[in-house]
Protein backbone atom coordinates (compact mmCIF):
# COMPACT_ATOMS: atom_id res chain seq x y z
CA UNK A 1 0.00 0.00 0.00
CA UNK A 2 3.02 2.31 0.00
CA UNK A 3 2.33 3.28 -3.62
CA UNK A 4 -1.21 4.13 -2.56
CA UNK A 5 -0.15 7.22 -0.62
CA UNK A 6 0.27 9.24 -3.77
CA UNK A 7 -3.12 8.38 -5.16
CA UNK A 8 -5.39 8.23 -2.20
CA UNK A 9 -5.89 11.86 -1.31
CA UNK A 10 -8.42 12.47 -4.08
CA UNK A 11 -11.48 10.30 -4.56
CA UNK A 12 -11.96 11.46 -8.10
CA UNK A 13 -8.90 9.82 -9.60
CA UNK A 14 -7.90 6.24 -10.30
CA UNK A 15 -4.70 4.65 -9.11
CA UNK A 16 -2.39 3.13 -11.71
CA UNK A 17 -3.81 -0.30 -10.91
CA UNK A 18 -7.26 1.00 -11.71
CA UNK A 19 -8.55 1.21 -8.12
CA UNK A 20 -10.35 3.93 -6.22
CA UNK A 21 -8.50 3.95 -2.93
CA UNK A 22 -10.88 6.20 -1.02
CA UNK A 23 -13.71 3.80 -1.69
CA UNK A 24 -11.61 0.87 -0.49
CA UNK A 25 -10.54 2.76 2.64
CA UNK A 26 -14.20 3.47 3.33
CA UNK A 27 -14.95 -0.25 3.16
CA UNK A 28 -12.06 -0.80 5.53
CA UNK A 29 -13.72 1.58 8.01
CA UNK A 30 -16.92 -0.41 7.76
CA UNK A 31 -15.26 -3.73 8.45
CA UNK A 32 -14.54 -2.48 11.97
CA UNK A 33 -18.16 -1.60 12.67
CA UNK A 34 -20.77 -3.71 14.44
CA UNK A 35 -22.05 -6.66 12.41
CA UNK A 36 -25.42 -6.44 10.66
CA UNK A 37 -27.11 -9.31 8.92
CA UNK A 38 -30.32 -9.90 7.02
CA UNK A 39 -32.02 -13.17 6.14
CA UNK A 40 -34.91 -13.55 3.68
CA UNK A 41 -37.52 -16.04 4.92
CA UNK A 42 -40.60 -17.28 3.12
CA UNK A 43 -42.90 -15.16 5.29
CA UNK A 44 -40.73 -12.24 6.29
CA UNK A 45 -37.23 -10.85 6.72
CA UNK A 46 -35.05 -11.11 9.82
CA UNK A 47 -32.63 -8.25 10.50
CA UNK A 48 -30.14 -8.52 13.30
CA UNK A 49 -27.33 -6.22 14.37
CA UNK A 50 -24.61 -6.00 16.97
CA UNK A 51 -24.68 -2.87 19.08
CA UNK A 52 -21.20 -1.55 19.67
CA UNK A 53 -22.16 1.46 21.76
CA UNK A 54 -23.19 -0.38 24.89
CA UNK A 55 -22.51 1.79 27.92
CA UNK A 56 -24.33 1.79 31.23
CA UNK A 57 -24.77 5.56 31.12
CA UNK A 58 -26.13 5.65 27.56
CA UNK A 59 -29.78 6.65 27.26
CA UNK A 60 -30.94 4.33 24.50
CA UNK A 61 -34.59 5.32 24.55
CA UNK A 62 -33.85 8.29 22.30
CA UNK A 63 -32.12 6.97 19.19
CA UNK A 64 -31.97 3.60 17.57
CA UNK A 65 -28.41 2.57 16.95
CA UNK A 66 -28.64 0.12 14.14
CA UNK A 67 -32.09 -0.61 12.69
CA UNK A 68 -34.15 2.21 11.18
CA UNK A 69 -37.53 2.50 9.48
CA UNK A 70 -37.38 4.41 6.21
CA UNK A 71 -41.02 4.29 5.16
CA UNK A 72 -44.12 2.20 5.69
CA UNK A 73 -42.68 -0.71 3.71
CA UNK A 74 -38.89 -0.39 3.90
CA UNK A 75 -36.37 -0.60 6.75
CA UNK A 76 -32.62 -0.63 6.87
CA UNK A 77 -29.68 -1.42 9.06
CA UNK A 78 -26.32 0.37 8.84
CA UNK A 79 -22.70 -0.46 9.44
CA UNK A 80 -19.98 2.16 9.47
CA UNK A 81 -19.60 5.78 10.53
CA UNK A 82 -22.78 6.66 12.41
CA UNK A 83 -22.72 10.33 11.49
CA UNK A 84 -22.53 9.48 7.77
CA UNK A 85 -25.29 6.93 8.24
CA UNK A 86 -27.63 9.54 9.74
CA UNK A 87 -27.29 11.74 6.65
CA UNK A 88 -28.05 8.83 4.34
CA UNK A 89 -31.02 7.72 6.41
CA UNK A 90 -32.49 11.22 6.33
CA UNK A 91 -32.05 11.26 2.58
CA UNK A 92 -33.67 7.84 2.21
CA UNK A 93 -36.66 8.82 4.37
CA UNK A 94 -37.16 12.02 2.41
CA UNK A 95 -36.91 10.17 -0.94
CA UNK A 96 -39.51 7.62 0.09
CA UNK A 97 -41.86 10.30 1.46
CA UNK A 98 -41.54 12.43 -1.70
CA UNK A 99 -42.26 9.41 -3.88
CA UNK A 100 -45.40 8.68 -1.85
CA UNK A 101 -46.55 12.29 -2.16
CA UNK A 102 -45.94 12.34 -5.90
CA UNK A 103 -47.39 8.95 -6.87
CA UNK A 104 -49.78 8.11 -4.05
CA UNK A 105 -48.23 4.69 -3.42
CA UNK A 106 -45.27 3.24 -1.55
CA UNK A 107 -41.86 3.52 -3.20
CA UNK A 108 -40.66 0.16 -4.53
CA UNK A 109 -37.64 -1.12 -2.59
CA UNK A 110 -35.20 -1.35 -5.49
CA UNK A 111 -36.02 2.16 -6.64
CA UNK A 112 -35.19 3.61 -3.24
CA UNK A 113 -31.93 1.67 -3.11
CA UNK A 114 -31.02 2.80 -6.62
CA UNK A 115 -31.86 6.40 -5.80
CA UNK A 116 -29.45 6.45 -2.86
CA UNK A 117 -26.76 4.48 -4.68
CA UNK A 118 -26.80 6.96 -7.53
CA UNK A 119 -26.17 9.69 -4.97
CA UNK A 120 -23.40 7.68 -3.31
CA UNK A 121 -21.72 7.07 -6.66
CA UNK A 122 -21.48 10.81 -7.27
CA UNK A 123 -19.19 11.08 -4.27
CA UNK A 124 -16.76 8.73 -5.99
CA UNK A 125 -16.58 10.68 -9.20
CA UNK A 126 -17.51 14.32 -8.63
CA UNK A 127 -16.66 17.13 -6.29
CA UNK A 128 -13.60 15.83 -4.50
CA UNK A 129 -15.55 14.94 -1.36
CA UNK A 130 -14.91 11.67 0.42
CA UNK A 131 -17.43 8.84 0.04
CA UNK A 132 -19.82 7.92 2.84
CA UNK A 133 -18.25 5.37 5.17
CA UNK A 134 -21.45 3.36 5.44
CA UNK A 135 -22.79 0.10 4.10
CA UNK A 136 -26.50 -0.51 4.33
CA UNK A 137 -28.78 -3.52 4.30
CA UNK A 138 -32.26 -2.69 3.06
CA UNK A 139 -35.21 -4.94 3.91
CA UNK A 140 -38.60 -4.23 2.43
CA UNK A 141 -41.78 -5.47 0.81
CA UNK A 142 -43.48 -4.19 -2.30
CA UNK A 143 -46.18 -5.60 -4.54
CA UNK A 144 -43.81 -5.99 -7.49
CA UNK A 145 -41.28 -8.40 -6.01
CA UNK A 146 -42.51 -9.20 -2.51
CA UNK A 147 -39.89 -9.47 0.24
CA UNK A 148 -36.49 -8.15 -0.81
CA UNK A 149 -33.06 -7.73 0.76
CA UNK A 150 -30.41 -5.44 -0.74
CA UNK A 151 -26.92 -4.41 0.27
CA UNK A 152 -25.15 -1.22 -0.79
CA UNK A 153 -21.60 -0.05 -0.15
CA UNK A 154 -19.61 3.21 -0.39
CA UNK A 155 -18.89 2.72 -4.09
CA UNK A 156 -22.59 3.10 -4.87
CA UNK A 157 -22.91 -0.50 -5.97
CA UNK A 158 -25.87 -2.53 -4.77
CA UNK A 159 -26.80 -6.19 -4.94
CA UNK A 160 -29.84 -8.28 -3.98
CA UNK A 161 -29.41 -11.12 -1.51
CA UNK A 162 -31.21 -14.04 0.10
CA UNK A 163 -29.00 -13.64 3.15
CA UNK A 164 -26.01 -11.43 3.75
CA UNK A 165 -23.89 -9.74 6.36
CA UNK A 166 -21.88 -6.51 6.65
CA UNK A 167 -19.52 -5.12 9.25
CA UNK A 168 -17.13 -6.91 11.56
CA UNK A 169 -16.33 -10.53 10.54
CA UNK A 170 -18.75 -10.37 7.66
CA UNK A 171 -16.85 -12.83 5.46
CA UNK A 172 -17.05 -15.56 8.11
CA UNK A 173 -20.74 -14.79 8.53
CA UNK A 174 -21.47 -14.95 4.79
CA UNK A 175 -19.58 -18.25 4.54
CA UNK A 176 -21.69 -19.71 7.33
CA UNK A 177 -24.90 -18.37 5.78
CA UNK A 178 -23.92 -19.94 2.46
CA UNK A 179 -23.74 -23.33 4.16
CA UNK A 180 -26.79 -23.07 6.34
CA UNK A 181 -29.31 -21.04 4.31
CA UNK A 182 -32.06 -23.39 3.13
CA UNK A 183 -35.24 -21.39 2.37
CA UNK A 184 -36.13 -20.95 6.01
CA UNK A 185 -39.34 -19.88 7.67
CA UNK A 186 -39.25 -16.81 9.89
CA UNK A 187 -38.69 -18.89 13.02
CA UNK A 188 -35.85 -20.83 11.40
CA UNK A 189 -34.37 -17.59 10.12
CA UNK A 190 -34.31 -16.13 13.63
CA UNK A 191 -32.43 -19.17 14.87
CA UNK A 192 -29.99 -18.95 11.97
CA UNK A 193 -29.45 -15.25 12.62
CA UNK A 194 -28.54 -15.93 16.24
CA UNK A 195 -26.19 -18.70 15.16
CA UNK A 196 -24.35 -16.40 12.78
CA UNK A 197 -24.20 -13.57 15.30
CA UNK A 198 -22.66 -15.76 17.95
CA UNK A 199 -19.87 -16.52 15.49
CA UNK A 200 -19.19 -12.95 14.46
CA UNK A 201 -19.38 -11.26 17.84
CA UNK A 202 -16.01 -10.74 19.51
CA UNK A 203 -17.70 -10.53 22.89
CA UNK A 204 -20.14 -12.82 24.65
CA UNK A 205 -23.68 -12.84 23.23
CA UNK A 206 -26.10 -10.89 25.45
CA UNK A 207 -29.55 -9.31 24.82
CA UNK A 208 -28.18 -5.79 25.39
CA UNK A 209 -25.64 -6.24 22.62
CA UNK A 210 -28.12 -7.36 19.98
CA UNK A 211 -30.80 -5.44 18.09
CA UNK A 212 -33.14 -7.74 16.19
CA UNK A 213 -36.28 -7.04 14.15
CA UNK A 214 -38.53 -8.82 11.72
CA UNK A 215 -40.23 -7.27 8.71
CA UNK A 216 -43.57 -8.88 7.82
CA UNK A 217 -46.35 -8.00 5.42
CA UNK A 218 -49.80 -8.81 6.87
CA UNK A 219 -53.30 -7.73 5.93
CA UNK A 220 -52.08 -5.27 3.34
CA UNK A 221 -49.66 -3.52 5.70
CA UNK A 222 -45.95 -3.92 6.34
CA UNK A 223 -44.74 -4.06 9.92
CA UNK A 224 -41.24 -3.77 11.38
CA UNK A 225 -41.43 -5.48 14.78
CA UNK A 226 -38.52 -5.20 17.16
CA UNK A 227 -37.94 -8.38 19.11
CA UNK A 228 -38.45 -7.90 22.82
CA UNK A 229 -35.63 -8.25 25.31
CA UNK A 230 -37.08 -11.56 26.55
CA UNK A 231 -37.44 -13.01 23.07
CA UNK A 232 -33.83 -12.14 22.22
CA UNK A 233 -32.70 -13.60 25.54
CA UNK A 234 -34.66 -16.78 24.71
CA UNK A 235 -33.00 -17.10 21.31
CA UNK A 236 -29.56 -16.57 22.87
CA UNK A 237 -30.29 -19.25 25.44
CA UNK A 238 -31.31 -21.71 22.71
CA UNK A 239 -28.12 -20.90 20.82
CA UNK A 240 -25.95 -21.47 23.88
CA UNK A 241 -27.65 -24.82 24.49
CA UNK A 242 -27.06 -25.86 20.88
CA UNK A 243 -23.37 -24.95 21.28
CA UNK A 244 -23.11 -26.99 24.48
CA UNK A 245 -24.67 -30.01 22.79
CA UNK A 246 -22.34 -29.64 19.82
CA UNK A 247 -19.33 -29.47 22.17
CA UNK A 248 -20.53 -32.44 24.15
CA UNK A 249 -21.07 -34.45 20.95
CA UNK A 250 -17.62 -33.46 19.66
CA UNK A 251 -15.84 -34.33 22.94
CA UNK A 252 -17.59 -37.73 23.13
CA UNK A 253 -15.94 -38.73 19.90
Amino acid at each position, binding site marked *: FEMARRYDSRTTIFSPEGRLYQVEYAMEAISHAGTCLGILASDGIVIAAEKKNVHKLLDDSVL*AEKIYRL*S*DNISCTVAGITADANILI*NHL*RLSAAQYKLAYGEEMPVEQLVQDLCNQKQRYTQVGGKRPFGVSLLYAGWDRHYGYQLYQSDPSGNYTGWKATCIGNNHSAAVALLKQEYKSPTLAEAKTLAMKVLSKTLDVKLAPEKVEMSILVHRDGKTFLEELSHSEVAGLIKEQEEREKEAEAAASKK
Partner: protein
Amino acid sequence: RKMWGLTARDDERDTEDALGETFDVNAVEAPVSGNFTFPNPPLGLQPKGFVNAHFGPGSAAKSLQFRKGTTTLAFVYEPLTENDVGGIIVAVDSRASAGEYISSKSVMKILDVGDHMVATMAGGAADCQFWCRSVHKYCNLFELRERSTITVSAASKYFANVLYGYKGQGLSVGSMVAGYDKRGPQIFMVNSEGDRSLLKVCSVGSGSLNAYGILDTYYQPKMSDEEARKLGRRAIMHATYRDAGSGGVCNMVHITPTKKVRYPGVDVSKLWYEFADEIGRDIAYDPRDD
Protein backbone atom coordinates in the same frame (compact mmCIF):
# COMPACT_ATOMS: atom_id res chain seq x y z
CA ARG B 1 -52.79 44.97 -30.31
CA LYS B 2 -52.32 43.58 -26.80
CA MET B 3 -51.71 39.83 -26.64
CA TRP B 4 -53.35 38.08 -23.72
CA GLY B 5 -51.04 37.69 -20.79
CA LEU B 6 -48.16 39.66 -22.23
CA THR B 7 -48.41 42.70 -19.96
CA ALA B 8 -47.74 42.72 -16.27
CA ARG B 9 -50.52 45.21 -15.56
CA ASP B 10 -53.29 42.70 -15.93
CA ASP B 11 -55.70 44.45 -13.60
CA GLU B 12 -56.63 47.13 -16.08
CA ARG B 13 -60.33 47.30 -16.87
CA ASP B 14 -59.89 47.16 -20.63
CA THR B 15 -58.22 43.76 -20.40
CA GLU B 16 -61.65 42.28 -21.13
CA ASP B 17 -61.83 43.93 -24.52
CA ALA B 18 -58.34 42.87 -25.40
CA LEU B 19 -59.18 39.37 -24.21
CA GLY B 20 -62.21 39.20 -26.45
CA GLU B 21 -60.31 40.58 -29.39
CA THR B 22 -57.40 38.21 -29.27
CA PHE B 23 -59.64 35.32 -28.23
CA ASP B 24 -61.63 35.74 -31.44
CA VAL B 25 -58.53 35.86 -33.56
CA ASN B 26 -56.92 32.88 -31.91
CA ALA B 27 -59.85 30.60 -31.32
CA VAL B 28 -62.99 31.51 -33.25
CA GLU B 29 -61.43 32.22 -36.58
CA ALA B 30 -59.12 29.57 -37.92
CA PRO B 31 -55.65 30.41 -36.66
CA VAL B 32 -53.13 31.15 -39.35
CA SER B 33 -49.80 29.56 -38.56
CA GLY B 34 -46.97 32.02 -38.45
CA ASN B 35 -49.41 34.66 -37.22
CA PHE B 36 -50.12 33.03 -33.92
CA THR B 37 -47.70 32.57 -31.09
CA PHE B 38 -48.76 30.78 -27.94
CA PRO B 39 -49.32 33.36 -25.20
CA ASN B 40 -46.83 32.83 -22.40
CA PRO B 41 -47.08 34.29 -18.92
CA PRO B 42 -44.46 37.00 -18.55
CA LEU B 43 -41.53 36.74 -16.21
CA GLY B 44 -42.39 38.41 -12.93
CA LEU B 45 -46.06 37.40 -13.13
CA GLN B 46 -47.88 38.31 -9.90
CA PRO B 47 -50.00 35.27 -9.05
CA LYS B 48 -52.70 37.03 -7.03
CA GLY B 49 -53.08 39.78 -9.62
CA PHE B 50 -53.32 37.24 -12.41
CA VAL B 51 -55.88 35.15 -10.55
CA ASN B 52 -57.98 38.19 -9.69
CA ALA B 53 -57.87 39.58 -13.19
CA HIS B 54 -58.90 36.43 -14.99
CA PHE B 55 -61.02 34.67 -12.39
CA GLY B 56 -61.92 37.40 -9.92
CA PRO B 57 -65.09 39.52 -9.77
CA GLY B 58 -65.55 41.53 -12.95
CA SER B 59 -63.62 39.08 -15.08
CA ALA B 60 -64.93 36.71 -17.72
CA ALA B 61 -64.51 33.60 -15.60
CA LYS B 62 -65.77 34.76 -12.23
CA SER B 63 -67.49 31.44 -11.69
CA LEU B 64 -64.08 30.07 -10.80
CA GLN B 65 -63.85 32.27 -7.71
CA PHE B 66 -63.09 30.37 -4.57
CA ARG B 67 -65.94 31.25 -2.27
CA LYS B 68 -65.54 28.29 0.08
CA GLY B 69 -68.92 26.99 -1.11
CA THR B 70 -69.17 24.19 1.37
CA THR B 71 -70.13 23.28 4.90
CA THR B 72 -67.66 21.57 7.18
CA LEU B 73 -67.96 21.24 10.90
CA ALA B 74 -66.26 19.54 13.81
CA PHE B 75 -66.78 19.45 17.54
CA VAL B 76 -65.28 17.81 20.61
CA TYR B 77 -67.49 16.07 23.13
CA GLU B 78 -67.15 13.97 26.25
CA PRO B 79 -68.97 10.69 26.75
CA LEU B 80 -72.22 10.75 28.71
CA THR B 81 -72.24 7.15 29.95
CA GLU B 82 -69.70 4.30 30.09
CA ASN B 83 -71.17 2.90 26.89
CA ASP B 84 -70.06 5.99 25.03
CA VAL B 85 -66.58 6.74 23.77
CA GLY B 86 -66.52 10.51 23.27
CA GLY B 87 -63.98 12.17 21.01
CA ILE B 88 -64.43 14.34 17.92
CA ILE B 89 -67.20 14.33 15.33
CA VAL B 90 -66.23 15.74 11.92
CA ALA B 91 -69.09 16.15 9.43
CA VAL B 92 -68.96 17.63 5.93
CA ASP B 93 -71.09 18.01 2.82
CA SER B 94 -69.90 16.81 -0.59
CA ARG B 95 -70.73 19.51 -3.12
CA ALA B 96 -68.15 21.24 -5.33
CA SER B 97 -69.44 24.31 -7.12
CA ALA B 98 -67.93 26.60 -9.76
CA GLY B 99 -70.22 29.61 -9.51
CA GLU B 100 -73.68 28.33 -10.31
CA TYR B 101 -72.49 25.06 -11.80
CA ILE B 102 -72.27 22.05 -9.50
CA SER B 103 -69.08 20.43 -10.69
CA SER B 104 -69.28 17.45 -8.32
CA LYS B 105 -71.81 15.90 -5.94
CA SER B 106 -69.41 13.44 -4.38
CA VAL B 107 -66.28 15.18 -3.15
CA MET B 108 -64.61 13.65 -0.10
CA LYS B 109 -63.85 16.68 2.01
CA ILE B 110 -62.33 14.82 4.94
CA LEU B 111 -58.70 14.03 4.19
CA ASP B 112 -56.28 11.96 6.22
CA VAL B 113 -53.26 13.64 7.72
CA GLY B 114 -51.41 10.86 9.48
CA ASP B 115 -52.91 7.84 11.18
CA HIS B 116 -54.66 9.72 13.98
CA MET B 117 -55.70 12.99 12.40
CA VAL B 118 -57.96 14.33 9.67
CA ALA B 119 -58.20 17.66 7.92
CA THR B 120 -61.33 19.07 6.29
CA MET B 121 -61.44 20.79 2.93
CA ALA B 122 -63.02 24.17 2.27
CA GLY B 123 -62.06 26.70 -0.41
CA GLY B 124 -60.03 25.65 -3.40
CA ALA B 125 -60.24 21.86 -3.71
CA ALA B 126 -56.84 21.58 -5.39
CA ASP B 127 -55.22 23.84 -2.81
CA CYS B 128 -56.66 21.86 0.10
CA GLN B 129 -55.88 18.44 -1.37
CA PHE B 130 -52.31 19.33 -2.33
CA TRP B 131 -51.41 20.98 0.96
CA CYS B 132 -53.13 18.33 3.08
CA ARG B 133 -51.07 15.67 1.30
CA SER B 134 -47.97 17.75 1.89
CA VAL B 135 -48.76 18.00 5.60
CA HIS B 136 -49.43 14.24 5.64
CA LYS B 137 -45.95 13.67 4.18
CA TYR B 138 -44.45 15.92 6.84
CA CYS B 139 -46.26 14.03 9.61
CA ASN B 140 -44.96 10.70 8.27
CA LEU B 141 -41.37 11.99 8.17
CA PHE B 142 -41.76 13.45 11.66
CA GLU B 143 -42.90 10.10 13.06
CA LEU B 144 -40.00 8.26 11.40
CA ARG B 145 -37.42 10.67 12.78
CA GLU B 146 -38.84 11.30 16.24
CA ARG B 147 -40.21 7.78 16.72
CA SER B 148 -43.41 9.10 18.26
CA THR B 149 -46.69 10.37 16.88
CA ILE B 150 -46.95 14.03 15.97
CA THR B 151 -49.34 16.17 18.01
CA VAL B 152 -52.34 17.89 16.42
CA SER B 153 -50.84 21.18 17.56
CA ALA B 154 -47.56 20.55 15.72
CA ALA B 155 -49.20 19.34 12.51
CA SER B 156 -51.59 22.29 12.39
CA LYS B 157 -48.76 24.72 13.20
CA TYR B 158 -46.71 23.34 10.32
CA PHE B 159 -49.75 23.67 8.04
CA ALA B 160 -50.43 27.24 9.18
CA ASN B 161 -46.80 28.25 8.68
CA VAL B 162 -46.79 26.87 5.15
CA LEU B 163 -50.00 28.72 4.31
CA TYR B 164 -48.66 31.95 5.78
CA GLY B 165 -45.70 31.66 3.43
CA TYR B 166 -48.12 31.92 0.52
CA LYS B 167 -50.24 34.66 2.08
CA GLY B 168 -51.47 37.12 -0.50
CA GLN B 169 -50.70 34.81 -3.41
CA GLY B 170 -54.21 33.56 -3.95
CA LEU B 171 -54.39 30.26 -2.05
CA SER B 172 -57.82 29.52 -0.66
CA VAL B 173 -57.79 27.03 2.21
CA GLY B 174 -60.11 26.82 5.21
CA SER B 175 -59.22 23.62 6.97
CA MET B 176 -59.87 22.09 10.36
CA VAL B 177 -57.16 19.75 11.62
CA ALA B 178 -58.76 17.39 14.12
CA GLY B 179 -57.27 14.51 16.06
CA TYR B 180 -56.46 12.85 19.32
CA ASP B 181 -53.05 13.06 20.94
CA LYS B 182 -51.52 12.94 24.39
CA ARG B 183 -53.21 16.24 25.22
CA GLY B 184 -56.65 14.85 24.38
CA PRO B 185 -58.99 15.65 21.49
CA GLN B 186 -58.21 18.89 19.67
CA ILE B 187 -59.51 20.83 16.69
CA PHE B 188 -57.38 23.55 15.10
CA MET B 189 -58.93 25.77 12.47
CA VAL B 190 -56.28 26.83 9.93
CA ASN B 191 -56.82 29.11 6.95
CA SER B 192 -54.98 30.72 4.06
CA GLU B 193 -54.97 34.08 5.82
CA GLY B 194 -52.52 32.52 8.24
CA ASP B 195 -54.99 32.15 11.07
CA ARG B 196 -54.79 29.19 13.48
CA SER B 197 -57.20 28.76 16.39
CA LEU B 198 -57.91 25.99 18.87
CA LEU B 199 -61.65 25.48 19.06
CA LYS B 200 -64.06 23.05 20.67
CA VAL B 201 -66.84 23.70 18.16
CA CYS B 202 -65.98 24.83 14.67
CA SER B 203 -67.56 25.25 11.24
CA VAL B 204 -66.06 26.55 7.99
CA GLY B 205 -67.63 27.42 4.64
CA SER B 206 -70.56 29.27 3.12
CA GLY B 207 -73.00 27.07 5.04
CA SER B 208 -71.17 27.53 8.33
CA LEU B 209 -73.61 30.14 9.58
CA ASN B 210 -76.49 27.70 9.24
CA ALA B 211 -74.44 24.95 10.82
CA TYR B 212 -73.46 27.17 13.75
CA GLY B 213 -77.15 27.90 14.32
CA ILE B 214 -77.84 24.24 14.95
CA LEU B 215 -74.55 23.55 16.73
CA ASP B 216 -74.83 26.48 19.10
CA THR B 217 -78.42 25.58 20.01
CA TYR B 218 -78.00 21.85 20.62
CA TYR B 219 -74.33 21.36 21.55
CA GLN B 220 -73.64 19.95 25.02
CA PRO B 221 -70.10 19.28 26.29
CA LYS B 222 -71.27 15.80 27.41
CA MET B 223 -73.27 13.78 24.91
CA SER B 224 -73.86 10.19 24.01
CA ASP B 225 -72.21 8.93 20.80
CA GLU B 226 -75.59 8.63 19.12
CA GLU B 227 -76.57 12.21 20.03
CA ALA B 228 -73.24 13.54 18.81
CA ARG B 229 -73.54 11.82 15.44
CA LYS B 230 -77.10 13.03 15.09
CA LEU B 231 -76.03 16.59 15.88
CA GLY B 232 -73.32 16.51 13.23
CA ARG B 233 -75.70 15.20 10.59
CA ARG B 234 -78.52 17.55 11.57
CA ALA B 235 -76.26 20.59 11.34
CA ILE B 236 -75.03 19.56 7.88
CA MET B 237 -78.58 18.91 6.77
CA HIS B 238 -79.77 22.38 7.74
CA ALA B 239 -76.78 23.99 6.10
CA THR B 240 -77.28 22.14 2.83
CA TYR B 241 -80.97 22.98 2.85
CA ARG B 242 -80.47 26.72 2.92
CA ASP B 243 -77.01 27.17 1.35
CA ALA B 244 -76.67 26.82 -2.41
CA GLY B 245 -72.98 26.02 -2.09
CA SER B 246 -73.54 22.90 0.01
CA GLY B 247 -75.27 19.61 -0.76
CA GLY B 248 -74.74 16.02 -1.81
CA VAL B 249 -74.09 13.55 0.98
CA CYS B 250 -73.06 14.04 4.58
CA ASN B 251 -69.74 12.33 5.22
CA MET B 252 -68.71 11.86 8.81
CA VAL B 253 -65.67 10.71 10.75
CA HIS B 254 -65.67 9.92 14.46
CA ILE B 255 -62.22 10.20 16.05
CA THR B 256 -61.89 8.28 19.28
CA PRO B 257 -58.87 7.90 21.56
CA THR B 258 -57.97 4.67 19.77
CA LYS B 259 -59.11 4.93 16.17
CA LYS B 260 -60.72 6.89 13.33
CA VAL B 261 -64.12 5.59 12.22
CA ARG B 262 -65.41 6.67 8.82
CA TYR B 263 -69.16 6.49 8.38
CA PRO B 264 -70.70 5.92 4.95
CA GLY B 265 -72.25 9.00 3.34
CA VAL B 266 -75.92 9.75 3.95
CA ASP B 267 -77.83 11.73 1.31
CA VAL B 268 -78.86 15.09 2.76
CA SER B 269 -82.33 14.90 1.26
CA LYS B 270 -82.85 11.67 3.19
CA LEU B 271 -81.77 13.53 6.33
CA TRP B 272 -84.25 16.29 5.51
CA TYR B 273 -87.13 13.85 5.20
CA GLU B 274 -86.17 12.35 8.58
CA PHE B 275 -86.23 15.84 10.07
CA ALA B 276 -89.57 16.64 8.47
CA ASP B 277 -91.03 13.43 9.94
CA GLU B 278 -89.72 14.31 13.37
CA ILE B 279 -91.27 17.74 13.47
CA GLY B 280 -94.44 16.42 11.86
CA ARG B 281 -94.39 19.09 9.19
CA ASP B 282 -94.99 18.54 5.53
CA ILE B 283 -91.98 19.63 3.53
CA ALA B 284 -94.07 21.57 1.06
CA TYR B 285 -95.23 24.81 2.61
CA ASP B 286 -98.55 25.63 1.05
CA PRO B 287 -99.90 28.96 2.33
CA ARG B 288 -103.65 29.18 2.50
CA ASP B 289 -105.11 31.79 0.25
CA ASP B 290 -107.51 33.70 2.50
